[in-house]
């Protein structure tokens, strides 16, 4: 699914790619520590920090009380005084209990201080529905953070991206939120053994095509690739672009694609209304207006809290089929 860029790779799952990134980064830089609920002894409920306590000890792998504002402040204060923290917020939904720290403190400290602060802080979290965890454990809230100057936001679409973007995020001297999607933690792909960075702010054309552009984030990238296969049966040659970083957004790559294909759709798992797809769509029509043969479409979750029952959640989730259907609808609409 991803191009191999390094010689020594293995097929490993997403979760291991993240864990490997953490371990290798911590070996390289003694100022890096990781803190969060059950990240040490238990190795995180998602397994992303398994093994770290053994290797790095409790000073650098820190179990915390259930107190997200405290945890996030711990990260901020440590980052402002010379450390490079990785802060784990188990479910993205829990950002609600530490929004002030993220948005009013972390994002703004540098600016409010006239540029003096350096905040090399990474926030690591899990988003997405599809596991019957209901309304408070399933949200994709990345749009909130993309709207906040001072933050960067990254959303890996697979194991290769997960490791490379994590390395870039942790090494970045700014606060970066890494939004993983819990339903792809088991997805496998070739991942280089050594440390490598995927540069922040650069989109990746993951599938080339000539007559339709799908811009997809996180899990929706693999769904869009499936949709592209479905649509190729219709004779459509779909290009799929993975922005990888949502903030800053690589307008250039995306717009170049749409200028080539003349049609675009954005797919994300978050609620469609007010999702980051709205921003992408707005930018595309601003920058490629004269190239567009059809309105820019959007696929996202419907405007409802995430339901518990599998039957309802299935209806809720954006999928390859829904993406393909929306592409067909848009094309039908062309006059």
């Amino acid at each position, binding site marked *: 699914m991803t191009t191999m860029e390094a010689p020594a790779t293995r097929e490993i799952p997403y979760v291991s790619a993240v864990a490997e990134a953490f371990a290798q980064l911590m070996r390289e830089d003694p100022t890096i520590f990781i803190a969060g609920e059950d990240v040490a002894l238990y190795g995180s409920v998602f397994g992303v920090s398994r093994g770290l306590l053994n290797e790095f000890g409790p000073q650098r792998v820190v179990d915390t009380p259930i107190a997200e504002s405290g945890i996030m402040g711990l990260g901020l204060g440590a980052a402002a005084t010379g450390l490079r923290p990785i802060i784990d917020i188990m479910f993205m939904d829990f950002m609600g209990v530490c929004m002030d720290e993220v948005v009013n403190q972390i994002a703004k400290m540098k600016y409010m201080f006239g540029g003096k602060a350096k905040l090399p802080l990474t926030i690591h979290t899990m988003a997405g529905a599809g596991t019957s965890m209901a309304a408070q*454990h399933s949200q994709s809230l990345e749009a909130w953070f993309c709207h906040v100057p001072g933050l960067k936001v990254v959303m890996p679409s697979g194991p290769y991206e997960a490791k490379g973007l994590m390395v870039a995020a942790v090494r970045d001297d700014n606060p970066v939120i890494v939004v993983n999607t819990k339903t792809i933690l088991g997805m496998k792909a070739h991942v280089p053994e050594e440390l490598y960075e995927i540069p922040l702010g650069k989109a990746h054309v993951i599938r080339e095509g000539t007559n339709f552009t799908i811009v997809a984030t996180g899990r929706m990238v693999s769904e869009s690739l499936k949709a592209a296969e479905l649509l190729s049966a219709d004779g459509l040659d779909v290009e799929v672009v993975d922005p990888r970083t949502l903030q800053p957004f690589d307008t250039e790559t995306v717009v170049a694609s749409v200028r080539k294909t003349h049609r675009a759709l954005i797919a994300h798992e978050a609620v469609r209304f007010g999702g980051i797809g709205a921003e992408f769509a707005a930018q595309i029509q601003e920058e490629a207006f004269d190239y567009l043969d059809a309105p820019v479409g959007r696929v996202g979750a419907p405007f*409802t809290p995430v339901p518990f029952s599998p039957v309802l959640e299935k209806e809720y989730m954006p999928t390859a089929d829904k993406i393909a259907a929306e592409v067909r609808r848009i094309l039908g609409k062309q006059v």
Partner: protein
Amino acid sequence: MTDIAADVLLDIHNRMVRIRTFEEEAGKLMESGKIPGALHLYVGEEAVAAGVMVHLRDSDQITSTHRGHGHLVAKGGDLQKMYAELFGRATGYCKGKGGSMHISDLDLGMLGANGIVGAGPPIAIGAAFSNKYRGTDDVTCCFFGDGASNEGTFHEAANMAALYKLPVIFVCENNGFGEFTRQERHQAIHDIADRAAGYGMPGIVVDGMDALAVYESAGEAIARARRGDGPTFLEYKTYRYFDHVGVRGMGVIYREDSEVLEWRQRDPIALMEARLAEQGLLSADGAAQVHEAALAEVREAIAFAEASPFPEPSALMEDIYTTAAGAGGAA
């Protein structure tokens, strides 16, 4: 114990047995893949829910946690609707939209299990404020864990409860762990009730495996709240037999099996049955009958749930907003 009426004692016992049975069967169903999502079981902690809830009326409210089945069973919840909810069926308490972590019954004043640790206390003071505002003598019991006691929400709510003298009881279920982190690794205090003084309310430490101790301490706190004398903090030392999520609970990385076995020595139901036998209120046979009745009821509930339809996919977009002619009305 002698001054507690026999029917109350039997009632407490019955509630505990119904909770345990409900939870053990739910655990099996989760393991066999029939219940989707996360299931946080209450087994081992039954004395707390039963000993508190036996004092409450339907119009008294409770706020609950992610570990909420026990609270709703003890508050008088309908087991059929509960199981149907765990199964994600249209006949469930939440029409399948909430599941285990959001099970609720507003008619019974059960303001919801909650997926956010520490979310209960602010909601509880709102209900208590409302009770006072509306001139009732209803009270609100706010259940939360040792782990939740470290969330800022608890602090804010406790301070406001004491300030406004609200009829709320903070029921801290100290089962020794927040997920996989032992209490001594999440706070530097031994008794969480020590926090109460910092808000200006009484804080009491109670053996949470002893249903009668729970009953008595809760009774006093609830009476105090009903009288308008304000909130109380009750800490119940208890233990969760099973794992944080699901059943297992032994052979795990974060605690010794021996610890589990020690706590099981003081099993709240066994303890209660021994006392009831001692008092001549319940024979071994009688106890067995209570268990059997509970199992029958639970099996019936499961059968009901399994026979129930899933929600229509179209139900996805219902129940988000109240659309009734909204204007002008008092609630």
